[in-house]
């Protein structure tokens, strides 16, 4: 008797557990759908003609027709925007990470009197709202002749990404042991040699994180580009896309094709390097 009722209770518990599991999965699937469906909707419809899009807005395209991509590519000068975005993002990443790593190296390894003060001078920069600097930046760059130049956009990107870069790299460099450098210094290795040969290689994971964080920030940046770049041939992808959509409000297909192309690199980076992307972007947000 007793055994039987225990059995029944067990079965009921298992049933309840199963019901709960099912519920959890349903909720999670709904969440996942809401997250990706807008992107899938866009990608699928980028392969449809306008007529097909009106008739069949939700389903798969009948044929994957690439006309929209051709139109987007030709009329929107996407190749120009792509090149500019890539160039600006990569140049800014290299310089930011190089400058940031050098500074972090000093903060992590060289206990000088005002070192801590300079460190906080950088880190507090994360509080600066960039929109408060748009006007003076515009004027300053006009005076310096930097408007509508690559340098004019790369320099603010470096400046505004340095705080988080310095922050992440310094805490990483502080964490690893000093034994190896110590013996290198004993052997007469100079400061910059130690930096290149020992500190940088050992900072691998943190460097990967900041490189990706910087790249995504720069690739996606809009406000500075909007204010500092006017010339069509220098526009970056977000800026170009914003304009392009203004012109093509009726041609949904071409618009969606352009947008799909634009997010592809970031999604690929994300899917392959998720760990670093997530780490970088949450560290960039939380800031300790």
């Amino acid at each position, binding site marked *: 008797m007793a055994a039987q009722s225990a059995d029944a209770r067990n079965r009921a518990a298992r049933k309840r557990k199963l019901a709960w599991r099912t519920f959890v999965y349903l909720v999670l699937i709904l969440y996942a759908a809401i997250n990706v469906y807008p992107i899938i909707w866009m990608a699928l419809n980028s392969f449809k003609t306008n007529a097909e899009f009106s008739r069949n*807005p939700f389903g798969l395209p009948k044929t994957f027709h690439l006309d929209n991509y051709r139109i987007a590519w030709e009329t929107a000068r996407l190749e120009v925007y792509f090149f500019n975005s890539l160039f600006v993002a990569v140049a800014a990443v290299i310089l930011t990470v190089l400058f940031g790593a050098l500074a972090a190296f000093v903060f992590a390894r060289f206990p000088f009197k005002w070192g801590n003060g300079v460190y906080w001078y950088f880190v507090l920069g994360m509080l600066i709202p960039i929109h408060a600097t748009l006007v003076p930046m515009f*004027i300053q760059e006009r005076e310096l002749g930097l408007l509508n130049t690559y340098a004019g956009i790369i320099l603010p990107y470096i400046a505004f990404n340095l705080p988080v870069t310095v922050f992440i790299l310094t805490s990483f460099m502080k964490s690893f042991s000093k034994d190896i450098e110590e013996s290198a210094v004993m052997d007469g290795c100079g400061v910059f040699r130690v930096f290149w040969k020992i500190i940088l290689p050992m900072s691998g994971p943190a460097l990967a994180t900041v490189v990706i964080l910087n790249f995504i920030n720069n690739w996606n940046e809009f406000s500075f580009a909007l204010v500092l770049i006017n010339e069509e041939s220098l526009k970056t992808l977000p800026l170009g896309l914003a304009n392009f959509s203004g012109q093509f409000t009726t041609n949904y297909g071409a618009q969606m094709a352009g947008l799909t192309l634009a997010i592809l690199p970031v999604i690929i980076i994300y899917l392959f390097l998720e760990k670093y992307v997530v780490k970088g972007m949450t560290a960039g947000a939380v800031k300790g």
Partner: protein
Amino acid sequence: MHLYTRSKGPFLAALAPAVIVYTLFAIIPIFVSFYYSLVEWNGFTDMKFVGLANFAEAFGDKIFWHSFVNNLYVVAASVFGQVPIALFFALLLNRKLKGSKFFRTVGFLPVVISTVVVSLVWGMIFNVRRGLINQLLSAVGLEELRQNWLGDPKLAMIAVCITIIWQFIGLYLIIFLAALQNIPGEIDDAARIDGATGLKQTIHITLPMIRDTLVVAVILCISGSLRTFDLIYVMTSGGPGHATEVLATYMFDKTFSSTRYGYGSAISVCIFFFSLALIGLSNLLLRRRAF
């Protein structure tokens, strides 16, 4: 460590590039904008020093306050939309669950996409004629619920807030998950032995354990929301009318369309201080309140 103390030269050289670029392109502009906020200037002719007149004008400017209120809507949408939803899903995912990695990956996806793309895609989703939402409503026979989401001043702000919530839930989801995974297993075990399970355990044990993270998240929401610019600029440019105007878009409009650099700078300075004040205030309130 006195390993490197022989000479300071190399260290100063190592520090110099970062300090110079950062000072010239991040710090100086902030101070310059304080100065510009005190002048009347169209960007070309001579500046006229007007003291606090720009601020006085801003505080009497209806659209300024309207933009500020919209900023507060965005703050509210983030704090009461993003944070609870993200917390809910973080709690669901913080257990042994097949496929939880997939849900995390998908959850964070919107965060990595450029805000410009997000606003353009959602702009299409909310489109009157061919947008996803109206088409869905038609497809399920709710034709009469179709709306001009971005064209109706009453609805535009709601549409904008939905987009903002969608964009950043994933960020908080990951932040909360990281915090939840830091809770030592013994605490859960102890709670279970004491009879706290399910909801009780969540409310009395888990949430207090990640309190600091919740505070950080709320502060992030506030500071991020006050800076909202790209999304609204691209989606609605503050319209229709000024229905979705926020401080940053209003500042942009005043500066670069009306070429009133002084007035625009005064609004920037207000953004700067509002965000400091709100962050300070929320910090104070949240650290005191017990869950």
